[in-house]
């Protein structure tokens, strides 16, 4: 028989370990059929996992040249952007990756909600998924500060100031988070370690557990939880297809499309690097990343002590979805219209808050008319004679701490 390196390694291992059960488990799992209702929407999880791997790859490359100190962080990001070969592209891909991953995570979550995938016996898979969403948002929160430019610095000041309004524990929580009384060098050190060590460890562990649970329970069927779940043969009889190669091919195609889209964004719209952080001057128009805009806008309408507790509360309510709000045995979306309607309305409110946050303190032209959106997001029509002047946020006469 002709010598082959893979066969040789396998034989070497087989002499020392009992590999057959491992191979059998792999074979069983890879060929496990997926139900016929599994469509392209079911590739979102795999695409998400692939983009997280890309993010890990670009993140490790950025770590090599990044220096996490207040004196050097900004210059090191400048160095990555302008001096290191392809540094701008790696940074751009990492930056865009963070946005695309949040979009995909939310779409994946929406898909699971629509198909009732969180219902018994998959509540734990759902819980781990919600925890993963929190980890992904944590990456966004801690990574935002790292470029140490004005927007990063002041966005973090606002975001870390909010928890201080919680009675008793708030101020100390904030000081622990930022390592002092104001965002400075210790904050950068803490955020960096959380961003590059603690969150990746949490992410890898949770992704592993999530995948394990998905493979254990299989893809959620559309039948109710009060009916026994179909076995492999039943799924095949109803028109299901084996995971390998059918669904794997679909996953692969979706992953390549996503990576293509990510790299196109990275190439065509590299992120801006503003001025170096100045703790004495807050620039105008400080806004957080788009996915924190709903929380940012909410803080303008309600007392901070209330507003700051809403985002974690939303995550907790999501976690409790299968236990408190959607306890019927039905999985099919058509039989859960009321629950889906309520969740859709909640999502619309969050989206509206985000939109108002985006529009607030800006001048926009809609259908040929120009509006100044005030701090609360209310539109004020601008007379034709005034158009061309400065929007309200860039009024004349701002002195110290004013326009950069």
């Amino acid at each position, binding site marked *: 028989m002709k010598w082959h390196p893979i066969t040789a390694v396998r034989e070497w291992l087989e002499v020392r370990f009992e590999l057959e059960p491992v191979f059998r488990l792999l074979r069983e799992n890879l060929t496990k059929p997926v139900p016929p209702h599994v469509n392209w929407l079911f590739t979102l999880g795999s695409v998400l996992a692939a983009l997280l791997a890309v993010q890990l790859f670009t993140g490790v490359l950025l770590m090599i040249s990044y220096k996490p100190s207040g004196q050097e962080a900004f210059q090191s990001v400048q160095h990555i952007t302008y001096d290191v070969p392809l540094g701008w592209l790696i940074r751009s891909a990492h930056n865009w990756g963070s946005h695309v991953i949040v979009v995909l995570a939310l779409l994946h979550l929406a898909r699971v909600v629509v198909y009732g995938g969180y219902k018994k016996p998959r509540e734990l898979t759902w819980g781990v998924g919600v925890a993963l969403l929190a980890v992904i948002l944590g990456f966004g929160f801690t990574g935002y500060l790292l470029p140490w430019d004005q927007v990063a610095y*002041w966005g973090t*000041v*606002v975001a870390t*100031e*909010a928890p201080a309004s919680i009675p008793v524990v708030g101020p*100390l929580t904030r*000081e*622990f988070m*930022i*390592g*002092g*009384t*104001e965002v*400075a*060098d*210790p904050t950068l050190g*803490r955020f960096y370690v959380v961003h590059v060590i603690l969150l990746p460890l949490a992410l890898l562990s949770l992704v592993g557990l999530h995948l394990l649970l998905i493979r254990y329970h299989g893809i959620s069927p559309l039948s109710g939880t009060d009916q026994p779940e179909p076995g492999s043969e039943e799924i095949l009889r109803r028109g299901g297809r084996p995971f390998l190669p059918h669904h794997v091919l679909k996953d692969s195609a979706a992953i390549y499309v996503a990576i293509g889209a990510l790299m196109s964004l990275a190439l065509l719209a590299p992120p801006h690097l503003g001025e170096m952080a*100045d*703790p*004495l*001057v*807050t*620039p*105008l*128009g*400080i806004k957080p990343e788009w996915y924190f805009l709903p929380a940012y806008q909410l*803080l*303008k309408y309600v*007392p*901070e002590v209330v507003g700051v507790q809403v985002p974690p509360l939303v995550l907790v309510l999501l976690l409790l979805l299968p236990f408190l709000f959607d306890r019927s045995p039905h999985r099919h979306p058509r039989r859960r219209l009321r629950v889906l309607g309520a969740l859709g309305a909640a999502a619309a409110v969050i989206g509206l808050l985000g939109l108002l946050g985006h529009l607030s*303190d800006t001048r926009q032209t809609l259908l040929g008319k120009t509006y100044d959106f*005030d*701090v609360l997001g209310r539109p004020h029509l601008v007379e034709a004679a005034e158009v061309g002047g400065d929007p309200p*946020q860039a*009024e*004349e*006469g*701002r*002195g*110290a*701490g*004013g326009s950069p």
Partner: protein
Amino acid sequence: MRRRVVNAFLGMGFVSTLGGFAGAALAYLWPGASGASGSNLLMGKDGPLSAATLAQDEGVVGRSNLGKVLVIRRGERLVGLQATCTHLGCIVAWNSATQQVECPCHGARYDLQGRVLRGPAREPLAQLQVTAGDEGIRVGPLGG
């Protein structure tokens, strides 16, 4: 009985070990003081700030032992206010056109006495004593 005692000791040992690590980490991570400079001299990015370079109706922000302070020239008088917005910690600025102290983050407005004119801030900015000296602007608590 002996087994239970041994188990209790082992359990306590394990908890103590964890507690030791957690305590050391807590001490290491305990937040230190940051931000305020040691003196009452108002410091800008490039050194002490001088009242002489401050034009009429102009404001400037610096650091002192009282934190970040906004100083505004009003004729011969210097007005001093705490510069950190009481809403979410952004640095306020003096707008000579509106004659108001404004926060660029969420739009809070204050008057020259630090009183809130427009939310979302609820608490006023603290007023501070400001004096112009040869070395630069010095700040202190009002009436101090």
